[in-house]
C-alpha cells in the first residue's frame, strides 16, 4: 500500500446534485477526506458540461462524472480532446425510465402488475402505431448510461430511437415539471428524479436501468491524465477516502443519517427531503459498495465505447487500448493495497 504524503492537500471537487453524489458528500461530512489529510471543498455544478470543462481546465481537481464522460473527453467527443482517467467507480445502477401518468394509464391494459421491460416496450410500440405524432422522450446528457439505456431499450422493443420517437434533452431538475406540462411523455434519468415523479403522481417508474443492464457502473470519480500523473499520492488518498465513504453508505443503519447529510445545502437540498419514505416497486438497485462495484472495470469501458460507436457518436478505433488508458484499475488496486486483481475484463 502506498501511503505517502499527498502532493496537494487543498482540493476542489465537483458534483452534480443527484443521489449518487453521496460518496463525495459523506467523505466530506463524515471526515473521511480529513482522515487522509485532505481538505476538500465540494462545488455544486449545474450541468455535466461544466464538470468536464472545469476538470479539463484545472478549475476542479476532480469530479463525480457520468461513467462514459472520461472516455468521451479522451476521444474528444462533443468537446476538445482532454485525456482523462478514472480509477474509482462511485456507484452502480440508479437510473430508471419514467413514463407520464397519462401514458402509463394508456399502456396499462396491456401490462401485468410488475411488467418487464419487454412488455412495456411492446405496449409502447403498439401505442406508437396508433398515433399521428411521435411521443417525446427526454434524457439529460448525450454521453451517459441514461441516454444509452433508453436507446438500447427502445431498439430492443422494435422502436427506432431516431425515427419513431423524438428524443430531446431536459435538465434533471426540470424533468417532472416538463412532463406535467405535457411536453414530454417519458424520460430516462438518475435518482432521485424517478422516485420523486412517482411520489408526486406525475409519472410512473416503468422500468429501470438495472433491468436493462444489470450492475452497470453509473458514476465514476474522474480526473485528467495530467492531474493523475502529477498527484499520484493525492489521487490514492482520494480513492481511499471515497471507498471508505462508499462502505459507510453500504450499511443500512447509516441511511437515515446519510439522508440528513444529503439534505444540507448545497447538496441535494429540497429534492432529497421526500426520499425518506420512498418505496420503489421496481429494482433500481443503486449501490455504492460491494464486490465489483468500485473497481473501474474494463468490460464497462468496452460497453460504453460500443454504445458510442453504435449510436454514431464515435467513428471507432482501438477500443481495448482506450479502455485501458482511461479505466485504471491498477491505480485503484495500488491505492487500496490490493494484490493485483484478476483483470475485470
Amino acid at each position, binding site marked *: 500500500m502506498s501511503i505517502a504524503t499527498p502532493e496537494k492537500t487543498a482540493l476542489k471537487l465537483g458534483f452534480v446534485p443527484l443521489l449518487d453524489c453521496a460518496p463525495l458528500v459523506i467523505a466530506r461530512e463524515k471526515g473521511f477526506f480529513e482522515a487522509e489529510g485532505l481538505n476538500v471543498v465540494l462545488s455544486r455544478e*449545474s450541468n455535466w458540461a461544466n464538470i468536464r470543462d472545469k476538470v479539463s481546465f484545472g478549475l476542479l481537481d476532480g469530479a463525480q462524472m457520468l461513467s462514459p464522460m472520461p472516455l468521451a473527453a479522451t476521444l474528444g467527443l462533443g*468537446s476538445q480532446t482532454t485525456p482523462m482517467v478514472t480509477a474509482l467507480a462511485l456507484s452502480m445502477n440508479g437510473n430508471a425510465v419514467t413514463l407520464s401518468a397519462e401514458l402509463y394509464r394508456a399502456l396499462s391494459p396491456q401490462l401485468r402488475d410488475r411488467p418487464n421491460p419487454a412488455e412495456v416496450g411492446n405496449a409502447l410500440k403498439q401505442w406508437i402505431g396508433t398515433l399521428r405524432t411521435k411521443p417525446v422522450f427526454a*434524457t*439529460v446528457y448525450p454521453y451517459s448510461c441514461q441516454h444509452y439505456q433508453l436507446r438500447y431499450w427502445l431498439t430492443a422493443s422494435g422502436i427506432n430511437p431516431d425515427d419513431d420517437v423524438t428524443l430531446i434533452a431536459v435538465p434533471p431538475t426540470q424533468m417532472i415539471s416538463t412532463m406535467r406540462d405535457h411536453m414530454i411523455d417519458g424520460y430516462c434519468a438518475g435518482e432521485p428524479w424517478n422516485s420523486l415523479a412517482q411520489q408526486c403522481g406525475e409519472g410512473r417508474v416503468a422500468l429501470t436501468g438495472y433491468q436493462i443492464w444489470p450492475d452497470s457502473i453509473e458514476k465514476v470519480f474522474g480526473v485528467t491524465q495530467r492531474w493523475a500523473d502529477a498527484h499520484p499520492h493525492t489521487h490514492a488518498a482520494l480513492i481511499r477516502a471515497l471507498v471508505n465513504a462508499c462502505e459507510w453508505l453500504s450499511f443500512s443503519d447509516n441511511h437515515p443519517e446519510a439522508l440528513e447529510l444529503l439534505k444540507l445545502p448545497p447538496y441535494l437540498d429540497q429534492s432529497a427531503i421526500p426520499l425518506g419514505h420512498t418505496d420503489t416497486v421496481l429494482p433500481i438497485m443503486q449501490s455504492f459498495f460491494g464486490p465489483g462495484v468500485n473497481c473501474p472495470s474494463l468490460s464497462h469501458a468496452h460497453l460504453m465505447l460500443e454504445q458510442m460507436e453504435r449510436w454514431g457518436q464515435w467513428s471507432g478505433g482501438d477500443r481495448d487500448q482506450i479502455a485501458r488508458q482511461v479505466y485504471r484499475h491498477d491505480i485503484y488496486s495500488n491505492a487500496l493495497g490490493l494484490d493485483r486483481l484478476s483483470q475485470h475484463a
Partner: protein
Amino acid sequence: MKDSRSLDVLIIDDEPTRAEALFDALNALGHKVVCHLSDSRRLCDQVSELSPDMVIIDMDSPNRDTLESMAAMSRSNPRPIVFFAEKADDRESISAAISAGVSAYVADGLQTDRVKAIMDTAIAQFDAYHSLRTELEKTKSQLSERKVVEKAKGMLMKHQGCDEEQAYKTLRKLAMDRSQKLVEVAQSVIDILELTTLPNAGKR
C-alpha cells in the same frame, strides 16, 4: 442576403441586465442577436427555428447539457453546434471564458476570427457584470434581503469551508435549479443549516 460578417447569435442568460448589455454590444458589432431568458422548455424548438450561428450561454445554466445533447443528436438538427474550444484552438481564451462563466457553441465551419471577436465581447461583458453586481450588492436598497443573503453566505462558507465567491455561486445555482429568488433560497439555506446540529456535522 445577409452581410457576410453578420452572425445570428442566441444569448441564453438568466441575468437580464447582463443579457441586455451583451445584446447591445453584439448589435453594435453588426450581429443579429436574440435573447432567451429563463424558460428552458422551449429551448430545443427555439434553437431549431432560429438555427443560430452561435449560442452564448451562462456556464451555470442547466441548459448547457441540453445544447450539448442537441449537438450530439444532430441528425434532427441541420446545424451541428460544437464547443467553441475545438475550433479556436486557444486554451488561454477558453480559460478566460470559463473564469468569466461564459461558454459558447458555434456552427460547424465558422471562421474563428469572427467567433473570437464575439467571444471576447461576451467575456468582457460577463466580467463587467461581475464587478457591477458586486457594486450593486453593496448599495442595494433592500437591506433586509441583503442581510438574509449575507447570513446564508456566511453559514455556507463556514459549513462548506469555501470562500465568499463560491458561497454566492452556490446560492445562485440553487436559485436557478429551483426557479426561486435568491433571497428565498438564502432563507431556506439558513433554515436547514440552523436545524442541523452543526457541531456534529463535518466531524466524525
